């Protein structure tokens, strides 16, 4: 003879595995859509950065014949010089070119007489696609100017070093992994979505669903404690959440193969150990999500109303992701212990290839589990109320 808890648990699992709607939304759409969208977005971004920095710089120049030595220098540096449009302002506004160089007749005269010679650069700073070519063009012109200036000083017997009282030596401490941080901040959110959508239908079915299809009263007339009934149902909800998050993690693993991270100089880590730790971190979140969803669904009058509330709830795990993105502060123990926020921070560290401390792992899982069990207890209390039976 099986315990009532396991009878309820297995009945819920079996029944919901037979439900096409639950399977599609909980185990297919939720876990697959997120990682796929993530991969597409990431690849798109990489592709864009790559094409801008590696493609030959295209330079539309008006009056190229006025600055033959500069044009030669630019060609040697790989720039592709094309004839400029007659009206540069119009061409930029019409997005025909990202930038236009204009070199007037007096350039040659100014250059020969040793005065600063004017090169006009037309661009639209509000067009973000222009940022990289404009920067590359600036660097090109500055280097050319530097080279000519140095040559002129040397001709006069002056060391070019005198013209450079200070210089900058860059020490960029970002690692390849840390550069992907902003986009990676989305990854924990996608995992959370998996958890929340995974258990959503079961949480509704447990409460508002049973009321709506008029099966709650007969169920409660079995010699089983209500707390046991809810515990069995909550366990099934959590099981579906965990299935969903496991599928999401595996999908990420596959999706990562298709994202050319190395082209950005990044190496993201998602090996067996990291995947296991992520799953461990998310386990108490599944309990918390199941309990919160059950509580909300218990207050709903019917399935549809519960579904509306729980869809809004999907935005909740997004808040810590946004918080991490906009205020990259050093984490404190209370942040780690805060449900969802803690998981967010630690999963980010794991994926970036950093190690997490055992203390932080315990803080995050323990803090969330504590809140999760507290909410589960409230859900049981609500289930015990007489008014729970009467939906309208």
């Amino acid at each position, binding site marked *: *003879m*099986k315990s*009532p808890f396991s*009878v*309820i648990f297995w*009945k819920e699992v*079996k*029944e*919901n595995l*037979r*439900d096409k709607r639950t399977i599609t939304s909980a185990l297919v759409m939720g876990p697959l859509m997120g990682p796929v969208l993530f991969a597409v977005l990431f690849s798109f971004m990489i592709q864009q950065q790559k094409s801008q920095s590696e493609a030959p710089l295209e330079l539309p120049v008006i009056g190229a014949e006025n600055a033959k030595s500069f044009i030669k220098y630019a060609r040697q540096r790989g720039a592709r010089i094309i004839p400029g449009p007659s009206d540069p302002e119009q061409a930029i506004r019409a997005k025909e070119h990202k930038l236009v160089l204009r070199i007037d007749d007096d350039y040659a005269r100014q250059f020969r007489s040793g005065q600063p010679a004017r090169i006009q650069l037309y661009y639209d700073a509000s067009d973000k696609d222009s940022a990289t070519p404009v920067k590359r063009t600036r660097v090109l012109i500055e280097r050319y100017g530097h080279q000519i200036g140095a040559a002129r000083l040397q001709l006069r017997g002056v060391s070019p070093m005198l013209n450079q009282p200070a210089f900058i030596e860059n020490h960029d401490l970002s690692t390849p992994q840390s550069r992907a941080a902003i986009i990676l901040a989305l990854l924990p959110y996608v995992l959370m979505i998996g958890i929340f959508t995974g258990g959503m239908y079961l949480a509704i079915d447990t409460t508002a669903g*049973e009321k709506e*299809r*008029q*099966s*709650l*009263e*007969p*169920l*409660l*007339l*079995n*010699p*089983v*404690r209500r707390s046991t009934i809810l515990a069995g149902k909550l366990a099934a909800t959590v099981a579906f959440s965990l299935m969903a998050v496991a599928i999401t993690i595996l999908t990420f693993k596959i999706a990562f193969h298709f994202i050319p991270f190395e082209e950005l100089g990044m190496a993201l880590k998602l090996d067996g150990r990291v995947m296991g730790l992520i799953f461990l971190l998310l386990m108490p979140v599944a309990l918390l999500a199941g309990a919160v969803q059950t509580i909300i669904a218990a207050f709903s009058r019917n399935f549809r109303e519960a579904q509306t509330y729980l869809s809004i709830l999907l935005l909740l795990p997004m808040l810590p992701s946004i918080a991490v993105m906009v205020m990259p502060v050093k984490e404190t123990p209370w942040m780690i212990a805060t449900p969802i926020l803690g998981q967010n921070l630690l999963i980010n560290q794991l994926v970036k290839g950093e190690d997490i401390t055992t203390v932080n792992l315990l803080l995050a899982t323990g803090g969330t589990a504590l809140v999760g069990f507290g909410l589960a207890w409230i859900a049981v209390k609500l289930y015990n109320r*007489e008014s729970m*039976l*009467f939906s309208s």
Partner: protein
Amino acid sequence: MIQAQQLSKTFGHVQAVNSVSLQAPDGRITALLGANGAGKTTSLRMIYGLIRPESGQVRIDGVDPHHDREQSLHTLGVLPDARGLYKNLTARENIEYFGRLHGMAESDVQRRCDLLIEQLGMQSFAHRRTEGFSQGQRVKVALARTLVHDPQNIILDEPTNGLDVMATRSVRDFLRQEKARGKCILFSSHVMQEVSAICDHIVVIHNGRICATGSESELLAQTGQKNLEDAFVHLISHNGDNNARGNNP
């Protein structure tokens, strides 16, 4: 045996049930007869321990369902007004689920399922998922799962509501068999014909109060009427509508 004494319940300002007492002995079918909103469902819900009466007490084979809820439910089978099934489970799985929740051994669950499926004539649809079942098929499944643990006491809230003639007959035949096995059966109804057809003892409820009890012939004699319907109308019109009350919750 089911005994209820002086049960009362109010919802807000409405006195739904007022001092209801009744007794349903073993080997008899007892009917709680009343119009819609007379307090039948609320009275039954207090008797089977789902809602707590404000005053009064209930005994199911001597056990107080409000005190020893689980113990009382072992000897009690209830077909409530709400009789929703799990649509992704087959008829048989719906019945098995309740058997297992009653803590029955798996072999007993299977034996009772076979028997009830045969007795209620469910062979043709027992293996099908219950989605799209007719009203009659659904009531039979609900009745079978109510009785899967073979309880001594059976409470049925308007069991034949919405059933066609054939389904009604098979449910009645089944209840007669259970009565012959010495079961205590208490059911509510607002259909005179049905009460007249199978009940041994009738309790008439009106405005949340019991206004008469007795066998059909006793009620006819008491009111001087020729049939149960006239007797019922006589009884409720001579029991003042003066105390305010509303519908079921």
